[in-house]
């Protein structure tokens, strides 16, 4: 209890003190202060989260406001999971701030940044521990506004304020929807506390549940960035400083899911397949739209932002599948789908913040994020390149990194749709599976592009050719995240029980048994596994490491019924060991050969031209253009400038065709909406013709209407 409470209090103390101290200390010390307070606060949060996850939940009442009710805090295992994820990301980005922030020294107010950044950390922690409607909403609103301020930090840059404002506006629209739900729930239950809400609302009818679901899904999706509420996301990320981007992507997006899950699983479980279908479909569409735009994008940070939309889509697919499985009375599958979604959320937070930090370093050292102008950075900043590569491999779901495990689990979940009773649902799952497959393939293209165009080949601009190495405090947090990416990819059997722990008791207790069979348990104790099954896997070496390693085993496995004992199985750990062994053998052979054979290094073969010039190599736009051409119907680029210049009639001097995409969501959703609003406003404008008696008539008419309404009710 104390071990949870003290660190939590320390988080707020550190953040508050740090924010104030920033205004006292000289400004050149501010980056260090931000880094110190931020990372200490993150460490405290980590401690509290870990303590809850492995110990007991914590809850406490703050104070009671008379007419409203009691304000309470609590940290259950669900929030503890989110808290840990947030803490890791914040830790990394805080350390990163130490040298990264120096680029703003002199022309931006670092004190303001320091205050905003630390308060944002406090707000995030507060959201996660809030146990009543009021503090949750207040913390949420504080978080939104702080995000707005931080994204708008470089407010002088083109489009920065616009992006931040769009983010704020979208967030507020969602907030209003959420607020209505909470107020409705609080009135219904007569209490502010979540605990009481839950018990009081057990008997809510399906229509109300649907309403709550729709409102909260809408509201929280504005933060999660699911289609169609994500048009702020690819704008806000490039505008924000890299450490804020990392937090936005690694933490704030997750908070959307936290809110959604808190309401729709904890407080008022939906319990219908329909809700799951909505989430699943929205998730698939988001994943596809996200990755398509990411592949076509040329701005490194915007690319990562689009890819966040994709990843949120993948998580939503997991959540949607879980909802459907749960409503179809398949609790184990629902549990697995949840685990897949949570695993992916965890992974995404890690590799996306890693990539954002990497993009931040590139931006800082070259002054550009335009992939068309980068290239060849691997020679100038090898560590950054290596770590970015790990992030890119992880996000492309390449083993042995973490993205592979969660995406694989999500796929397997979708394939389990065979157990669903309804054919239309199975068809839907199949379609979503196909969509996810396309997404996964495009993700590889996208990150091959991001890495290769950024770091490999020839530098395509002056700026990229004179970049300098990243600072140690920038490399260290990235390295931390990269190591976590590898570990989470190697040891899923240790991660899954933790996720299971954080999700219990909301999911079926058999889930972890079904996913991670206890191969490491002493033979006598493993009564859960049939002997024949155990023998089979013994022969395969599943028990390799028994008595040396702790845990249940290293094989991930879905155990079905008697006639189908193994539905799927894999072991990234053993596979990695085998891979390392094979690579070592290959290296041995090569080393032997190299002793007798001369290794010749030679220039790149380019058809015999003297030198491959920067204008002769593929640009990022060129690399992804095939995708653009194939998906032209989605992008529908508008040609905004087209010219063909010639001198003296026939000598061509310039051919230029500049295209601009209007973001799909804007095109299909916001622009028509804006047009509709404008049209409505136009209709109303007709009433303004300046005749006084007409206005009096309107007023009297409205008065009558209100009176009639009053009489009627």
């Amino acid at each position: 209890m104390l071990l949870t409470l003290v660190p939590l209090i320390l988080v707020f103390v550190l953040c508050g003190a740090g924010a104030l101290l920033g205004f006292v200390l000289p400004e050149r010390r501010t980056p260090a202060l931000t880094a110190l307070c931020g990372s200490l606060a993150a460490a405290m949060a980590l401690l509290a989260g870990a303590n809850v996850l492995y110990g007991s939940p914590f809850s406490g009442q703050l104070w009671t406001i008379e007419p409203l009710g009691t304000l309470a805090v609590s940290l259950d295992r669900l929030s503890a999971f989110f808290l840990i994820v947030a803490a890791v990301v914040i830790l990394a980005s805080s350390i990163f701030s130490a040298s990264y922030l120096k680029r703003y020294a002199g022309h931006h107010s670092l004190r303001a940044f320091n205050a905003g950044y630390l308060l944002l950390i406090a707000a995030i922690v507060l959201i996660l521990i809030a146990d009543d409607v009021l503090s949750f909403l207040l913390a949420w609103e504080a978080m939104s506004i702080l995000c707005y301020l931080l994204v708008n930090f470089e407010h002088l840059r083109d489009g920065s304020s616009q992006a931040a404002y769009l983010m704020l506006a979208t967030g507020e629209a969602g907030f209003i929807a959420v607020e209505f739900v909470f107020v409705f729930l609080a009135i219904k239950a007569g209490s502010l506390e979540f605990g009481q809400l839950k018990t009081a609302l057990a008997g809510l009818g399906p229509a109300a549940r649907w309403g709550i679901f729709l409102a909260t899904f809408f509201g929280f999706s504005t933060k999660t960035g699911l289609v169609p509420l994500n048009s702020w996301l690819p704008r806000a990320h490039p505008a924000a400083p890299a450490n804020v981007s990392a937090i936005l992507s690694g933490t704030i997006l997750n908070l959307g899911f936290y809110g959604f899950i808190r309401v729709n699983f904890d407080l008022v479980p939906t319990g219908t397949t329909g809700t799951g279908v909505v989430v699943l479909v929205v998730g698939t569409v988001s994943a596809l739209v996200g990755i398509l735009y990411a592949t076509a994008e040329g701005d490194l940070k915007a690319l990562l932002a689009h890819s966040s939309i994709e990843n949120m889509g993948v998580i939503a697919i997991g959540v949607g599948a879980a909802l459907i499985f749960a409503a179809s009375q398949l609790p184990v599958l629902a549990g697995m789908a949840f685990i897949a979604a949570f695993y992916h959320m965890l992974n995404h937070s890690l590799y996306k913040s890693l990539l954002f930090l990497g993009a931040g370093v590139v931006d800082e050292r070259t002054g550009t994020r335009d992939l068309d102008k980068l290239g060849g950075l691997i020679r100038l900043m090898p560590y950054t390149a290596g770590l970015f590569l790990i992030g890119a491999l992880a996000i492309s779901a390449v083993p042995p990194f973490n993205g592979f495990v969660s995406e694989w689990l999500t796929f397997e979940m979708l394939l389990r749709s065979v157990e669903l009773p309804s054919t239309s649902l199975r068809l839907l799952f199949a379609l979503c599976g196909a969509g996810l497959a396309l997404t996964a393939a495009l993700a590889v293209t996208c990150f091959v592009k991001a890495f290769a165009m950024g770091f490999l080949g020839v530098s395509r601009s002056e700026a990229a050719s004179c970049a300098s190495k990243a600072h140690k405090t920038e490399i260290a947090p990235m390295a931390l995240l990269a190591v976590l990416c590898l570990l989470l990819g190697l040891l899923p059997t240790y991660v899954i029980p933790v996720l299971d722990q954080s999700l219990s008791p909301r999911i079926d207790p058999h889930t972890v048994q079904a996913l991670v069979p206890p191969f490491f348990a002493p033979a006598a104790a493993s009564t859960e596994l049939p002997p024949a099954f155990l023998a089979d896997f013994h022969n395969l070496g599943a028990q390799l490491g028994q008595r040396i390693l702790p845990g249940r085993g290293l094989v991930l496995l879905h155990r079905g019924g008697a006639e189908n004992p193994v539905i799927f199985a894999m072991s990234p750990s053993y596979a990695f060991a085998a891979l390392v062994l094979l690579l070592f053998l290959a290296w041995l052979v090569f080393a032997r050969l190299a002793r007798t054979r001369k290794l010749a290094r030679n220039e790149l073969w380019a058809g015999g031209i003297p030198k491959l010039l920067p204008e002769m190599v593929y640009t990022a736009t060129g690399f992804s253009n095939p995708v653009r051409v194939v998906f032209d119907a989605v992008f529908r680029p508008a040609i905004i400038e087209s010219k063909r210049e010639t001198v003296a009639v026939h000598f061509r001097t310039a051919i230029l065709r500049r295209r601009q995409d209007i973001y799909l969501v804007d095109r299909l959703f916001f622009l028509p909406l804006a047009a509709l609003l404008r049209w409505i406003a136009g209709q109303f404008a007709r009433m303004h013709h300046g005749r006084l008696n007409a206005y009096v008539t309107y007023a009297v008419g409205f008065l009558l209407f209100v009176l009639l309404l009053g009489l009627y009710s």
Partner: protein
Amino acid sequence: MTVSPPPPAQQRMFDTTALATEVARRFGTAVTRTSENGGAASWFVVEDRSALVPLCRFLFSEAGCGFAGMIVEERNEWNLRYLFLNPGCGWVYCILRLPLSTRTVPSISVPVHPADWYEREAEDLFGLTFQGHPRLGDFVLHDQVWQEGLTPMRKAFDAGQTQFELRPQQDWRPTLVVQDPGAFAMPVGPVYEGGIGESVHFLLETVGEDVIRAVPRLFYNYRGVEKIAEGKSLWDVLLLAERFSAKSAFAHSLAYCQAVETALHLETPPRARHLRVALSELERLRHHAGVINGICRSTALAVSESHAAIIEEKLLRASAAFSGHRYLFGLNTPGGLRRDFDSEATSALLRSVDDALQLLERLEQRLSYSSSFLDRLEDVGVVSPASARHLNLLGPVGRASGLRRDVRRVCPYSGYQHFQFQVAHEEEGDGYARLRVLFAEARQSASLIHQAIETLEPGPLCADPVPIRAAAALGWVEAPIGAAGHWVSFGRDGTIERYRILSPSFRNWMGLHVAVEDFAFQDFPIILSTFGLSATECDR
């Protein structure tokens, strides 16, 4: 998509006297007519250099002349000859004489677009600057190898020198035209295409997927033929004329011999003329079979490619069996031919030609049924008739775009006027039209070989030798790729003073860019093969 050339002005037909009258009316004393050549062609001397551009514009866009090339001669003054070919009155020369100290010349390539590359070449090799030309520098002498300001075609430059300092320009950058965001220039070559391709370097300007523009970078094969010919005897230059572009060796040696014959007033005997026609057409037939083979290869239709390759090799063998050389080297000589052929040899040749023609016709028929093949040729690499006229495209390429120009008809040589043949032409200007023209010309060639050999009469094979005198003349032929001209000018010592090759490939390479705009990358080899270009013929 493509920049459309301006509509042609009202064109009139002129004969020699009408043209002279019209020029006199328009330009008065600024342009005078000379009788240097004995009145066989229209020679105009531009007295006032400001009249050059209007005169050339008048000839090109009003008098219906095609631009045939530019010949720069350095004597005791600059002597620039602008060559036009008029269907009504034959060759028209505009001569501009400038003192040797002059470095700038008015550029005519704004009104006369085909002059573009000629002026660039002269700028690179003679150091003349063409005022008003928008794109000079880095042409024949690549800036990555040579320094600026080297003028190898000047008389003072010693062609034989092998040791001189090269100062490549390190900061060379290609001039790129496509400015789309993310555009880049994909380099191809000069060593590419499985190696068995000529050395050409292309920069394909693209934003990925589709190529917006392709710019060839030529002259990798430049061996300075025109320069090393200077000071050589006419027999040695004959070897050069034959060997600078072997695929049309006979045509070029014929043009050279005709130039010498005109300059020295040699009368070729009829038997030699007939045999020359037969050999020229044999070469055209073989050349076209080779181009058709290339087209089949570029479309990856393997059986047809093999079929065409067999035809080409059979014709090569027939050439060797007939003449002793697979590429017809060593046959032409000023005044006639070096060797005679008996009737057994000629009838064997006719049999081989008939065989080859039969195979070609079968190939043509099959290809016209192969939809996948036609899909890749139709509407690919289109050159509109207007563009073709504007760029003066030559040979089968021009004729496939509706230009019915063939010097065998317009200015017959070697007795072509006595034979029956049609000038094959198509209107569409796409890859398939070019293929059809090639087949039609191959048929005409076979028929011409028959006519020439069947009307062969016994007689002498070579004119009697005459003394060499200081004179200059142009010889021209319709080479397989298009009209070629060789300008030979003898010095007082009887050696060649200036040798100029107006090669058809040079012109068609210049026009290639209109066919390679906005196309899919995979069509590139197809467009290139249908043009049937030769880099070595262009480079010299």
